[in-house]
Every structure is written in C-alpha cells, then in structure tokens.
C-alpha cells in the first residue's frame, strides 16, 4: 500500500495527464467499480479503506481520503488560486509554471541505516581531521618544548594576577561599583564593554561566512550527485565506449608511473591484465566469429564505417591477446628493492632473533624513514646566511681536501724528493706514478668502491638484546663485548662476496659497500710522510734529509716495494686446480702423460677475482683483507634511513663536538628533540589553542558535526522536496 500511496501523492504535472484525468474521471470511476465487483466475486473480502465508519482516536493517515478518492493530486489543484491572485509576484508564478512543466520525480533519500553509517564514518573523520597537520608538524619538528603553550615567564599584568580575587569589604565594593559603573576599563589593556560588544558583533560576520560555506558545501554535494546520476542515465553505447577508451588510455599512462612509484600495485594490475588476456583468448569475444562480426563482415565491402568498426574490433582483440612484456631482471630488482625500502618489520614472522643462530637473523626495519639526518640537512639549507655555517662549510671543504691529500701522501713526499733526488730509479718511478695519477684523476669518482649489500638490511635494530648478564661497571661492558664478539667476526664472508658482485656490476646498482676506510680507520700500508708542513728551518731540513739519505743509502726501498706488491698480487691470483687422474680410462704408467683432452677437461680454473683496488696505483698497496680487530668496530651494512653510502659517510664525517665547531653550532647540533621543564605538569593538547585560526574546521566541530552531516547527506533530498513550493 505504501507504493500505492506514493504513486497517489506524486505530483503529476504532465499536461497531457491532467487533461486525461479531467476527461476520463467518469470512465475511471466506472472502471473502479468494475474492479471492486470482480474483487468481491473472488470470495476473499477486500479491505475497504476508503470509509471511516466511526470516530476513533488513532486515525491512520492511510485511511484518510478526500472525496475524490483515487484522483491524483494536482499541483494546479493546490495552487490554482495563485494564478488569479494579484498579490503573488510574477516571479513566483513563473517558477510555478516551470515546476509544472518539469517532468522529474524526486529521488528517494538514503535509508536510515545507510545514513547512520555514513554519518558515523563522517563524524570520526571530521572530528579528528583538523589534527592532521598539527600532528605532522609536531612529528617533524626538530625540537619540541613541553609543556606546550607555556606562559611567558616575565612579569604578569595586574589583572591576570588578581583574576581570582574577590571584593570583600564594603569600601572595596563601593569603589568597584563606581569603577565598573562608568563602563570604562579599570586597567589599561582590558577592553571596554562597548568594544567587547563590537567584538561580539564581529561574530555575526563570521557566522555569515560560515553559512556561506555551508551553502557552498551543500551545493557542491548536490552538483556531484546530479552529475553522477546524469552520467549513469546515459544509454548511448557510443558514449560509454568513448568513456571506456579514455579510461583505458588514462590507465596505461598511470601504469607507467605506477611501475616506478608503486611496483606492488603495478604487479597487481599486471595480473589483472593477464587475466583479461586469458579471458579474451578463451572466449575469442573480439574475433570475427560473432554474429555481429559476421554481419559487419558482409557490410564491410560496401560500408566504410562497418569496415572501420571491424578493424577496431580486431585491434581490440590484438591488444587484449598481446602478451605483456615480462619485466626484465632489472625491473625485478627494483621491485625487490622497493619492497625492501617499504619496511614493515612486524610483517616478518621471524623478527625474533637468536643471537646464536645466524639463520634467524631476519630483516628488521623501521617505521619512520626520516630521521635526524634529514633534519640536519634542513638546518643547513635553512641557515645558509649564517656566518657560522659558512665557516663550517669551509671546514668541511678543508676536511675533504685533506682527505684527498692524505690519500696521495706519497705524492707530496715525491715532490720533496724530487728536488734533491737524482737517482734514476726514482725518477722513473715518479714519471710512471705521475702518469698513473693523471689517469686516476680523470677517472675521478667513478671508481667504484667495493660494495656490501644492503640486502640483509639491518638486524634487530630496535630490539633490546636481553640476557642474564648484569652490567654494573665498565669492566662488565668489556666482558660483554668479548662474549658477543665472535658473532661479529662471523659476518665478513658475506660482505666480501657482495663486494665482488658490486665491482663486477654496473654502478647503477644501489647495493654498495660502505667505504670502511672513511668510516673509521685508515689501514693503507702506504709509505707515509707527514703532510703537515713541519715548522723547520731550511738548513735543518736539509740536514735531516741528508741524514735520512745516509741511513738508507744501501736500501733500495722502491724496488723492494714493487717486489712486495707483485708478490701480493700473485698471492691474490687464483691457482689452477688440476684434477686429472692418470690411468683412468686409458693406459697408465711411468712416462705416460694423460691426453690433452683430459688435461683440458679436468684442469679447473676459478674465475679471476675482481680487480685489485690498487691496480692502477703503482705507489700504494691496499690490503683487501678484513682485519678482525677493526671489523668489529665497522658498520657492515648500510643502516636503514640512509639511501646510499655517501649519505651515511657524510653523516659520520661531520663532527659535532666543540673541538671542531664553534659554540653556537655545537649548541644547535646537539639540541635534544624533546625538552621538558623541570617540575612542570605537561597537560594534554587543548583544542582551542591549536585550531583557532581554521574557522571552518572549528566551526564544523562546534556547530555539531552531526547536524552538518545530515544536512549534507540525508536531508538534501528532503530539503529540496519541501522547498519546492517556496522557491
């Protein structure tokens, strides 16, 4: 019956219908009677709803009917008089006429459950959305000082201090009455009542702004709804085809980006594509075997458009059945890396780590990718004007320069030697060296450093290592070191193999070794001479040099060095393993050599090791062995927040102590992240302190999110409905 009712109460504005109703009302009545007669014949008595036989307290609205029951109510019936009245404005009349001519029926509002669900969803979002920026800001802040919103520590105004004070004696009362009666401020900065009132009046304007915003929101909502409905209603196949095509194109574009940014998502999409391809191949939907295709094929001879359509379809088939290009190994790697850089240690089932069992060492990662290093950079960029910074920059430059110099220690020494030494050997060596050096400088930085891989990422970073050893003194700590040390020494094997990989592979790979040399110690066995200009007189220096000459007169240091180096190189080269067994499968005996094929087959050559680091440095021997004593102090893997080794190295290289930096710089660099005041209670955030400026957000919260939600989501329909008459 409700549907019936709805139909009845609908406002039929169609002109034709009105006419029809007026003319055919007699017929309809007859028809109805006939129907009733038929109904009564059926045995089951039909409920008679039209009549009220007796008065009752509760009257259902469904049983109330006007005299002309069954007639559909007309807008003109209700408002017929308006046309005639002179008081109604033309505008109103026009609107009414428009309303009459419009054919649309109104959409049903959402049902109650849906509305409630949406409102709950919305309310939570709305309630906390205003905090997003503040929270983000606080998380990124370099330093937070608690309690927040501290009162200024300076002297307070009188009226602040005496806020809680109350008038007590009659004299005071008298005075206060006088003072306040004048409506003048008692103390300077306090507003006069008039001013306060004017301030209050300001809120009206604010309210207006807010109302406008609300209207806008409502309008937007209705626009979107209308748009969606409109688009949904379009029946044109062509339109949808075009739309779909556009969507597909868009998607392809997005997919390219997705491969770079969101490899996981891209993979999923790829899978979907694969699926659609399979479906196409199975169904052959776009092949020319369908009914439509056959008819088109006949038409195609004569009709250009049909031909085009055919071609399009075949193209579609081609597109769909085309096999997706399997991403190359490179891409795979990038995906894997992407996965690794999306850290989620909780997801790893084997987070629990056994200090003894190396297989249990899982990948542990962080939640927060940005850590102090980034902020440090920010500081540097932000305060570039600062003089201190300039000084630091200079120092840094010098430091780097010095490191370069240190690398070329021998070069300096050579120059010194060059002046005096005329020995042939040395000069020859020098020319060779210079040649090599020029080569080296040309190559510059693209010399790949041996790389450790970051694949292991990082083990158990956040985990405490809990054990039964109590630490009470420094000695205990030393013991602790020794106890756990063996594990550290186990590690090196993996990094070294990784180093080999890194050197053999192109430099675009991310996984790289940390140059341990820069991180901690320098263990080059190079011949070192002091790089600092020693403050010695020329004569003394000459003397010294002559003494040194005398002392090493018999030694041929340089040839020794060269020999030493070649020996080390030879030791590093892999030996050929001969596994030939003479006599197997042939005659054996004294003087019989195994045949050539056999020797060839069973002599196993191992792959040559990666080129030595000192290959092109004639004056340096770089030992590539890891010394255990140093290794235990060195970082073997790139720590998580850092993207590459250079970043990490630079973070380590910059000293923060007062030995190297000026006082203010040290203060800046070492300032703690969280500062609390001693003995102060840290209150939770107060909304009003933080979200004052954002009127909209606050307003939404103040007015009551619920009302807003309803007005936007639920009542739009109703609202329009009820306003149809007063437009």
């Amino acid at each position, binding site marked *: 019956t409700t549907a019936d009712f709805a139909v009845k109460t609908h406002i039929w504005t169609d002109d034709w219908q009105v006419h029809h109703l007026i003319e055919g009302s007699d017929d309809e009545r007859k028809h109805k009677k006939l129907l009733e007669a038929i109904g009564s014949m059926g045995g089951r008595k039909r409920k008679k709803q039209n009549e009220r036989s007796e008065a009752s307290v509760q009257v259902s609205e469904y049983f109330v009917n006007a005299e002309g029951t069954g007639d559909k109510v007309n807008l003109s019936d209700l408002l017929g008089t308006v046309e005639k009245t002179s008081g109604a404005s033309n505008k109103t009349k026009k609107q009414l006429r428009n309303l009459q001519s419009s054919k649309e029926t109104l959409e049903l509002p959402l049902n109650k459950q849906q509305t409630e669900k949406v409102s709950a969803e919305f309310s939570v979002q709305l309630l906390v959305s205003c905090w997003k920026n503040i929270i983000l800001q606080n998380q990124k802040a370099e330093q937070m000082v608690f309690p927040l919103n501290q009162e200024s520590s300076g002297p307070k105004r009188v009226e602040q201090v005496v806020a809680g004070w109350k008038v007590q004696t009659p004299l005071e009362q008298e005075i206060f009455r006088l003072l306040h009666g004048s409506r003048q401020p008692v103390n300077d900065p306090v507003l006069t009542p008039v001013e306060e009132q004017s301030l209050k009046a300001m809120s009206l304007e604010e309210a207006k702004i807010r109302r406008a915003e609300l209207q806008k929101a409502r309008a937007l909502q209705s626009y979107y709804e209308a748009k969606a409905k409109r688009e949904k209603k379009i029946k044109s196949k062509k339109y949808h085809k075009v739309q779909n095509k556009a969507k597909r194109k868009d998607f392809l574009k997005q997919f390219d980006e997705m491969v770079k940014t969101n490899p996981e998502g891209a993979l999923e999409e790829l899978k979907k594509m694969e699926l659609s391809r399979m479906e196409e191949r199975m169904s052959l939907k776009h092949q020319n075997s369908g009914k439509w295709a056959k008819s088109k094929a006949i038409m195609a001879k004569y009709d250009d458009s049909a031909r085009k359509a055919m071609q399009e379809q075949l193209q579609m088939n081609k597109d769909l059945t085309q096999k997706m290009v399997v991403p190359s190994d490179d891409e795979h790697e990038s995906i894997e890396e992407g996965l690794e850089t999306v850290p989620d240690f909780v*997801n790893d089932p084997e987070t629990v780590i056994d200090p003894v069992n190396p297989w249990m060492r899982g990948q542990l990662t962080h939640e927060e990718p940005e850590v102090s290093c980034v902020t440090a950079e920010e500081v540097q960029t932000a305060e570039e004007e600062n003089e201190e910074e300039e000084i630091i920059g200079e120092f840094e430059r010098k430091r780097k320069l010095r490191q370069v110099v240190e690398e070329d220690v021998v070069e300096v020494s050579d120059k010194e030697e060059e002046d005096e030494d005329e020995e042939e050997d040395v000069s020859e060596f020098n020319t060779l060296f210079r040649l090599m050096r020029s080569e080296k400088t040309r190559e510059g930085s693209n010399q790949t450093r041996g790389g450790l891989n970051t694949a292991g990422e990082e083990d158990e970073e956040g985990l405490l290592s809990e054990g039964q050893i109590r630490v009470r*003194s420094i000695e205990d700590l030393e013991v602790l070191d020794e106890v756990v040390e063996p594990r550290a020494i186990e590690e090196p094997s993996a990094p070294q193999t990784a180093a080999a990989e890194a050197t053999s592979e192109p430099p675009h790979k991310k996984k790289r070794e940390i140059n341990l040399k820069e991180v901690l110690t320098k263990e080059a066995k190079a011949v070192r001479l002091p790089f600092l200009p020693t403050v010695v007189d020329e004569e003394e220096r000459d003397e010294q040099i002559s003494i040194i000459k005398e002392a090493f007169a018999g030694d041929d240091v340089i040839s020794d060095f060269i020999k030493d180096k070649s020996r080390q190189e030879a030791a590093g080269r892999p030996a050929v393993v001969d596994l030939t067994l003479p006599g197997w499968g042939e005659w054996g005996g004294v003087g019989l050599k195994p045949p050539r094929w056999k020797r060839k087959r069973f002599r196993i050559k191992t792959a040559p090791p990666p080129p030595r680091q000192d290959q092109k440095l004639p004056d340096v021997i770089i030992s590539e062995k890891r010394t255990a004593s140093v290794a235990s102090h060195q970082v073997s893997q790139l720590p998580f927040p850092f993207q590459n080794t250079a970043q990490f190295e630079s973070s*380590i290289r910059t*000293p923060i*102590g007062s030995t190297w930096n000026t006082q203010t710089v040290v203060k800046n660099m070492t300032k*703690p992240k969280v500062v609390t005041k001693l003995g102060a*209670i840290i209150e939770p955030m107060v909304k009003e302190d933080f979200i004052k400026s954002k009127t909209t957000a606050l307003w939404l919260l103040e007015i009551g999110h619920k009302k807003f939600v309803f007005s936007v989501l639920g009542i739009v329909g109703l609202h329009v409905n009820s306003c149809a008459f007063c437009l």
Partner: protein
Amino acid sequence: QRRAIPFTLGVPRNYDPTLHPFEVPREYTRALNATKLERVFAKPFVASLDGHRDGISCITKHAKSLSTIISGACDGEVKVWNLPRQECLRTVQAHEGFVRGICSRFCGTSFFTVGDDKTIKQWNWEAPGYGVREEPINTILGKAVFTGIDHHQREGTFVTCGQTVDIWDEQRSSPIRSFSWGVDSFSCVRYNPVETELLASCASDRSVVLYDTRESAPLRKVIMQLRSNTLCWNPMEAYYFTCANEDYNLYTYDIRHLDVPVTVHMDHVSAVLDVDYSPTGREFVSASFDKTIRIFPKDKGHSREVYHTKRMQHVICVRWSADNKYVLSGSDEMNIRLWKANASEKLGLLSAREKAATHYNKKLIEKFQHHPQVRRIARHRHLPGDILKQKRELREMREAQRRKEQNVRKHSKPGSVPLLTEKEKHVVAVVE
C-alpha cells in the same frame, strides 16, 4: 682543579681542521665511552612505597600536583602518597572489595573511586581534620559493579564502565547517557584527552569500542582475537590510542582506520595489564603479568627499556608522571615502585656544562648508533632467567606456527591461504 673561565672573555680558538685531525675516530671513541657510561649509570629504580595490605589495583596522578598520587588496593583501601617524601599522607577505607578505578577531577579538588560494592564515591583531596571521620562527599549507588572510571578533561562529567558504559553528570545520581553494544561487560573506559567528546572502552567480547558522547549510539568497534585489558589515548595526537592486549602485545590504532593497527608492539611474554602514555606523547609504558614493565617508543615495534626487580610480582597498573620524568608501577606484592623514565638520566638541576655534556653524549650515541659496538652495548639489558626462558619458548612457538602456516600454504591451492601480515592477523572485524 679547573678554573672557570668567564664566559664574556671567550676563548680564542683556532678551528682549522688541519689542527684537529682524526675527528671521526676521536668522536667514535667518545661515543663508545658515552654509551658505556650510559649503561653503567642506568639505575632506574628510585623508590618503593609500601603500606598497602593487598595488591595495588589502580593508581592515579593528582591533576594539579606532581608530588601527589593516589592508589587503590584490592582490599578496598585507598592511599594518598607524597612522592618526594615517599610517605603515605592519608588512608581511606573506600570500598568493600576491590577498588576498581580511581580518577582525579580536572581541577584537583576531589577524586572519584569505584569499587566492587557497586558504588561511586567522590572524595575530597583535603584530608579531614583530626578526629573527623573520613566521609565521601558524594556516593552513588549503581546497579552493577563498576570496573573503571575516567573524568572529563574540562567539564563536570565522568564516565564509568561495567555492564554498560555510563556518562554521569557530577550533579546527578543517575547516568545522563549509557551505551551498550550487545551484552558484554567492559573493563576499561577512557576519555580522549584532546578530543574530549570521544570515548573508548575495552569490552569483554574482545572488542574496543569508540563512542561520541554527543551521539546516542556507539560509533564503531574493532574486534580482536583476544581481549584488550586497558587502553590509553595519546595525549598529543588526538587520533591514536594504544591498547594492552591479552595476547602479550600492545596495539596502536588510528581511529580513522580501525581495520589495521598502526603498530604492533611486541616484547612482553605474558598478558599486558596496563598502559599509559608519557605526557609528551612520544612513548608509553606498559605493565605486564610477566613481572616487568616496558617502555615503548610510540611508533616502534619493540621496547627501548625493560624494568624489573627481584621482588616485583605481576604488575597490575602503571602510570607515567605528568612531568615526563618518572614512571609509577603498582604490583601484586603491595608495593608501588617509582622508576626513572630515562634510566641513566641524572636527576635534579644540571649546570650548564653538565647539560651541554649530556646533550653532546646523547647526540654522539645517536650518531654512532649503527656501529656494532655502540649498538651492542646500548641494547644490552639484564633479564631474569625465567622471563628469558619464556621468551625463548615464545619465539620457538612463533617460529613453529610460522613454519606450519608456510607448509599449509605450500600444500594448498594458491591464494586459498592468504599471507597475512602481523598487523592484519590480530583484527577479526570492524563493526560500525
């Protein structure tokens, strides 16, 4: 002895890097020393307050005074403590049976207690004069046992939980609103300290329910695999809360996306009974049935600190002091313990040089935190044998479960056994 150099004079110093070589090795050595000293000075235990005659069931801080706390015991006794003097100021026999919850009024003039005797009592913070009997200001008789109470941050309303979650006006003796969702009992209810109209409660049907006090029905709830015991809102980040679960873990949720917790904090080896955020909102402390308390950074999955003593039994309640310096824990064996929140921190006022040195050391440790020696020393904690054993056991079990699941996946139709992350595993459903 070193003479202080007047600051105004300044010390001329040449910062030319060639004059100060080996900066990295020197700083590394300093960092290593700082780390060692940090561990050596890590003495977190400050004091123990004894006097209760039964296990401590709840602790609350005074809203306006740092030095005052109240504790409720399982025998219905409530004690007011002075922390700096480490003594009990006042003892009240508040309830028959357990004191289930205490909360302080925001103005710091009175506090509320609820107990097993189905009453809510409001007490004055001021002790009555000599010879005057301890009487509550106000007593409300309820229909069922109340299990928790929390007071609004700025208004005269409070909320209790038990059979239902009720919101009370201080002036009335019947709740102005009560929520229930199914027929569960609730174990904990907390106001959001920032968005003061929001409420969250832990129900015994393993769910955490969110409410808006202005609405007539609860907003939504998330059902987990095991029950949450308590929860605590982040006082600085309005939409995060952390709940302490029976499955040994803590879960931090974002109320906008309840379907997956933001972080799973795991380290305890037994049910977690209580959790409280530091007032800075950066960390929280959790108390567990495994006789330890742990401090977690809010966004890390593992704890940065674990506290335990030989005599401390199951820790039932824990609170972080309002000045971010101390942690209070109440345990089964009738003692309240006061811990430093930062184990190696020096207490009291520091001179400027001391302060600078501590900041420098902290920064050094942070800078070299990835170096194996530094890391190893900084991470080392002593743990009693039985807990260690339990930990190993638990690890074994988890490993076995993982293996099992892997095998099942291997031998079933691809896709039929989905690969769930640790975060997704523990949430059963979100109901709206």
